[in-house]
């Protein structure tokens, strides 16, 4: 369906909802980038994700909306906040300095290219395949029920295998959150560590903090990814409705 057709089909409340949700999304996204305090950035991210959830509801993708709220605005942002807290809120990063020379110019050019590509794709009629596996969107039954059937029939194995992914996430977090030399996850606050642990190089003072930070970083990112993988499995059927 081309863009004008979509607009014609939309009713007034729909259009208003869409506009509001879109504004929420964009304002939140700008907030993520522009806020000085990383905690505020994370909270702005909640706003964006919530706006996306509203958009999902508008598309009749109720399950994805639920995933968006429960997993992303719930768990993922909480993880972000944890990692920010683990690293220290008051750490200043010099974001405006170019790490690589000419980084910004390249980013601008590439961004424009992507934008042009999106416009181009929107104006092209691509051949797409047969009807989606999970059946048409406007068929009988709710979206969530269809998804449930998909998950427990066609995508049963991916669903069960997702549990292995969760186990990896747990084991990975435990391994990476482990204090060097102690063989156990660190229990002490950083200021108690100095002088208290005679083991291993880097187990005391600032070294330990750096290692902690790194571990938190890695663990945080790792979980986010495995969660995303789980989300992909959950959304496999949902993405089908188009």
């Amino acid at each position, binding site marked *: 369906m081309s863009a004008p057709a979509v607009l014609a089909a939309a009713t007034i409340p729909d259009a208003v909802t869409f506009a509001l949700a879109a504004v929420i999304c964009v304002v939140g996204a700008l907030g993520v980038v522009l806020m000085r305090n990383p905690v505020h950035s994370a909270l702005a991210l909640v706003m964006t994700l919530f706006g996306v959830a509203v958009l999902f509801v508008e598309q009749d993708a109720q399950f994805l909306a639920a995933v968006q709220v429960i997993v992303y605005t719930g768990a993922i942002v909480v993880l972000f906040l944890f990692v920010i807290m683990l690293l220290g809120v008051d750490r200043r990063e010099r974001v405006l300095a170019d790490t690589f020379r000419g980084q910004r110019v390249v980013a601008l050019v590439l961004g424009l290219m992507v934008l042009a590509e999106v416009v181009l794709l929107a104006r*092209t*009629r*691509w*051949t*797409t*395949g*047969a*009807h*989606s*596996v*999970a*059946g048409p969107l406007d*068929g*009988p*039954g709710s979206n969530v029920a*269809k998804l449930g*059937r998909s998950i*427990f*029939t*066609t*995508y*049963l*194995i*991916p669903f069960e*295998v*997702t549990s*292995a*992914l969760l*186990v*990896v*996430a747990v*084991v*990975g977090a*435990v*391994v*990476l959150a*482990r*204090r*060097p*030399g102690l*063989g156990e996850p660190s229990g002490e606050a950083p200021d108690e560590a100095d002088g208290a642990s005679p083991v*291993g*190089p*880097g187990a005391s003072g600032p070294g330990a903090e750096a*290692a902690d930070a*790194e*571990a938190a*970083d*890695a663990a945080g*990112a*790792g979980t986010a*990814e*495995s969660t995303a*993988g789980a989300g*992909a*499995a959950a959304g*496999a059927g949902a*993405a*089908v409705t188009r």
Partner: protein
Amino acid sequence: MIGSAHLAGVVGARLVAASGITIPHIDYTAILPELILLGGMLLLLAAAALSPRPLPTEAYATATVGLATASLVTSLVLWRDVTDRGPLTTVAHSIDVDGFALFFLVTISCILVVAPMLGAGYLRRERISGPEYYVLALISGSGAMFMASANDLVLVFLGLEILSIPLYVLAGLDHRREASGEAAMKYFVLGAFSSAIFVYGIALTYGATGSTNLAEIGAFLARNVVTSDGVLIGGLGLLLVGFAFKVAAVPFHMWTPDVYQGAPTPATGFMAAMAKAGGFAALLRVFVSTFPSLRSSWQPVVFVLAALTLLVGAVVAVVQSDVKRMLSYSSINHAGFVLLGLQAATARGVAGSLYYVFTYGLVVLGSFAVVSLVGGSGEDRHDLARFRGLGRRQPVIATAFAVLLLAQAGAPFTTGFFAKLYVVEAAAAAHSYLLAAIAMGSAAIAAFFYLRVVFLMFSDAGAAAPAGEGATARAVEAARPAGIEPAGAAGGSWVPEPSGAVATMVAPVTRSAAADARSVSSGVVALDVSGEPPVATSPWILAGLGICVAVTVVFGVWPQPLVEFAHQATLLF
């Protein structure tokens, strides 16, 4: 691919009945190898969690070897069933149990049998306790198995993640070395990025074909001619990028040297063997069996990938003085050889690739195990000088390493020879003469650096070695932090402290200096006895190495069964 149209019909009919649910039939025996690994992994976790005091690492190793052996036996039994009754799909056609999958199941099980044997001693030496190494290895193996037998792109993706995320963690298993953490971080960030690209590829492919099921995609493409195939080609390209990253093909290899060098050495070997097995399994199945109609589009791309991978891997490996880093570049070179079979896209080519992946897995595991032994406690040194004279100090280890290196170089009477022969032959048969020539050239370059290590191990320490000068400089650097000031450095005759650790530190310095000064060989031998770093072997690692070497030599002399196996695997696609 035979009968895929029929299969698609069945799937369609089942899904149309949307009101009621058709419960998918699950053939538990068909997925038993995966179930054994995952179930065993959970039991290991529970045992670790519930046991009142920490279990020794050997206990976990024994359990892992047992589980892997069970899965190996099951895979072989399934192989017999499949050759008798033909391939089967199960769980709503998302799992294919065919010859191709079973070949990889056997390969992965073999890797899992050997890996714990080679890792246990290292973990004890480096004081890394707990079940994590084994648990992560088992999960990773099951992920690779799912990739090999997946008949659905969603499952391929999940397999990819379950394969890779444990590998990221394994790279960072050693907290005492910063390089390990750096490797984990690097691998993770780039790996997550490539996974995202891969998912995007799946999305585009789904958009273009209307299904994530590989058989249905194949059937759709066989029935329809896609006229404006931009989305499909785009999706295919992104899938290829995702796979190329996992198997470390140039130009997506940037992470490989740093990650392989930083990771704990047994984990490096496991990573190299497992990521390549899983990655190539899915790569071959998706491209050769699902997208044969688009061959003209992807074959040239794979050609460039393979050529670059072969050349860069070999050329950069030559200039490495660190053996661990050299082996990681050589693993890139090997990926190029496997790509040769994909580029040919014939049954012969795929069979060659299968043979290559199987033999490479065991060879690389053994090679990195030797490096972990010689590298010494804390992985302090992996440079070439460390390997000089190993043949005299540790004849068994050195001989094993020599065999494995010769296999990597492609010497006759090892599996490496036939592996290289089959893929190059397949490339030539598919009229990719240029690529075959490039492969031969890169094999010749690669032979140089493998043989250099072999000669170094068995050469007399008095003989001048090419890396002698550099090694001396490095050894001096290594000695400095320990507070040893070289006395009378110009004369090349420093007096080492006689006591324990210091003597160990100084010994290589003295030896290299002596080599430079071309002192009489008797003096060198005397120093040699006084303080070479000890290479601590254990029955575990000897058994593991023994398996690697035995497979390499036995199937090198008598390759027929394995060749037959690989050939049948491609027939039963």
